[in-house]
């Protein structure tokens, strides 16, 4: 699917995706010639049709997770289907840190924490605040390991060393992780 700006005879370029959480999607395209914008609005069925292909309009913010289509789309997933090896408390996704109880959060190392976006190629440990851990604990175990990796990858991508519920909200909106 392509959108052609007839006035400029230019292919409009993808600019932005919004997922309001009601099953619909808005994808904004912009003409590189005249800057005119248009929004493609999809109904829930159309959104699902694209989603069922395992792709995202505008590309991915974070890498595809193993079996994300099945785990994100299956109704009635078995809660104990996946082991807790990388579930909440998994130290291997908290490099250099210690997995502690949810009330204490997950500790990264002792280095000072940069502000949001200060280090966009951040590769160090991602710290989870106690509140963020509590929220993640409420995610069904069927998808929890996958969701945890998605948030961690998002934080690294954005150069965010500490995940909080507020950042999770932003990530959820940007990534279209409704219900996660």
């Amino acid at each position, binding site marked *: 699917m*392509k959108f052609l700006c007839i006035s400029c005879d230019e292919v409009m370029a993808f600019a932005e995706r919004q997922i309001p959480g009601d099953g619909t999607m808005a994808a904004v395209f912009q003409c590189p010639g005249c800057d005119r914008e248009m929004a493609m609005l999809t109904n829930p069925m159309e959104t699902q049709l694209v989603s*069922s292909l395992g792709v995202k309009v505008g590309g991915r913010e974070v890498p595809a997770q193993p079996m*994300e289509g099945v785990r994100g789309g299956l109704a009635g997933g078995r809660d104990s289907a996946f*082991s807790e090896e990388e579930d909440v408390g998994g130290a291997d996704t908290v490099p250099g840190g210690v997995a502690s109880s949810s009330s204490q959060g997950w500790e990264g190392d002792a280095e000072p924490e940069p502000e949001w976006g200060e280090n966009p190629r951040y590769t160090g440990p991602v710290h989870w605040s106690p509140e963020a851990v509590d929220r993640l604990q409420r995610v069904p175990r069927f998808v929890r390991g996958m969701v945890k990796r998605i948030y961690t990858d998002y934080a690294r991508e954005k150069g965010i060393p500490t995940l909080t519920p507020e950042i999770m909200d932003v990530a959820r909106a940007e990534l279209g992780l409704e219900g996660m």
Partner: protein
Amino acid sequence: MRKFRTYHDVDKSTGSQLLEQVLDQRSRLAERLAGIGQVVAVASGKGGVGKSAVTANLAVTLSAMGRRVGVVDADLNGPSLARMLGVPRGVLVDRADGVVPPKGAAGVPVISMELLQEAEDAPLRWQDPGGDTFIWQSTMETNALREFLADVAWGELDYLLVDIPPGTDKIGRFLELVPALPVALLVTTPSELSRAVVARSLRMVREAGIPSVALVANMSGYRCPGCGERHPIFPGDGARRLSEEGSVPIWGEIPFDPRISEDTDRGRPRVLEDPEGEVAQGFRQVALHLEEAAGEGKVSGAGKVSGAGQVSGPGKASPHEGSQP
């Protein structure tokens, strides 16, 4: 009427990255399958011929021969292989590089929708944000099967057996995912009805250019426990007729034995329970033919087909001779 450029006139991408993501999916699938010697589709087209039992018993037979084997239960709507291999509630290990499947009988790893659903009697349902499920359901299922193949950490395997659900269209859908499939085993029975349906599947896999196609004739007779004689269950001999008419070899004839069902129901394939019995001998013949085809270079791994010839002519091939009464 205004004239403006059509889709094919415009070569510039919109940046929506849909095509790139689809190509990335294919790339990930190819990378995963690169570690697998042979992907073997166990199919039929016909329901009720025992494809899943054949898959489970063949997997265990190959494993007992020292081969590294994995099983994909592609029957998303009627999964059974996790149960047949003894891990109906098996746990998958969640890793960033892929989901590690549980190991069932004889150490055979298996992925099945059965492992993922909470209720054992639940029909397969997807979260439905807006109705019109019928429009996207088959796409969702194809994507799920792709994930079963590409997102499971299979490691290095000699064989990955894929149990294809009934329906000729299901075979076609699988071939879309793995276009260079090297081996297809078509399970049939001696019944005339089975012959007619499986003939359609045979035509489909032939047209797809699969280099190695063979039949497994399941339910080929029944040995009476009273007199010890083997009697036919079905009138006629549809499997042999299909073999003759379709120029496709029979790699094994598996006798009907109610214990096959009893054993697989409790997660212990028959070939484990009675490794020297007639059933085990039949599966050993199938396994030997598979090994022979691989050894002859007719198949050389998923996506890397090296030969284009058909397997030997119709009827029993050599490893099978003398194994059945």
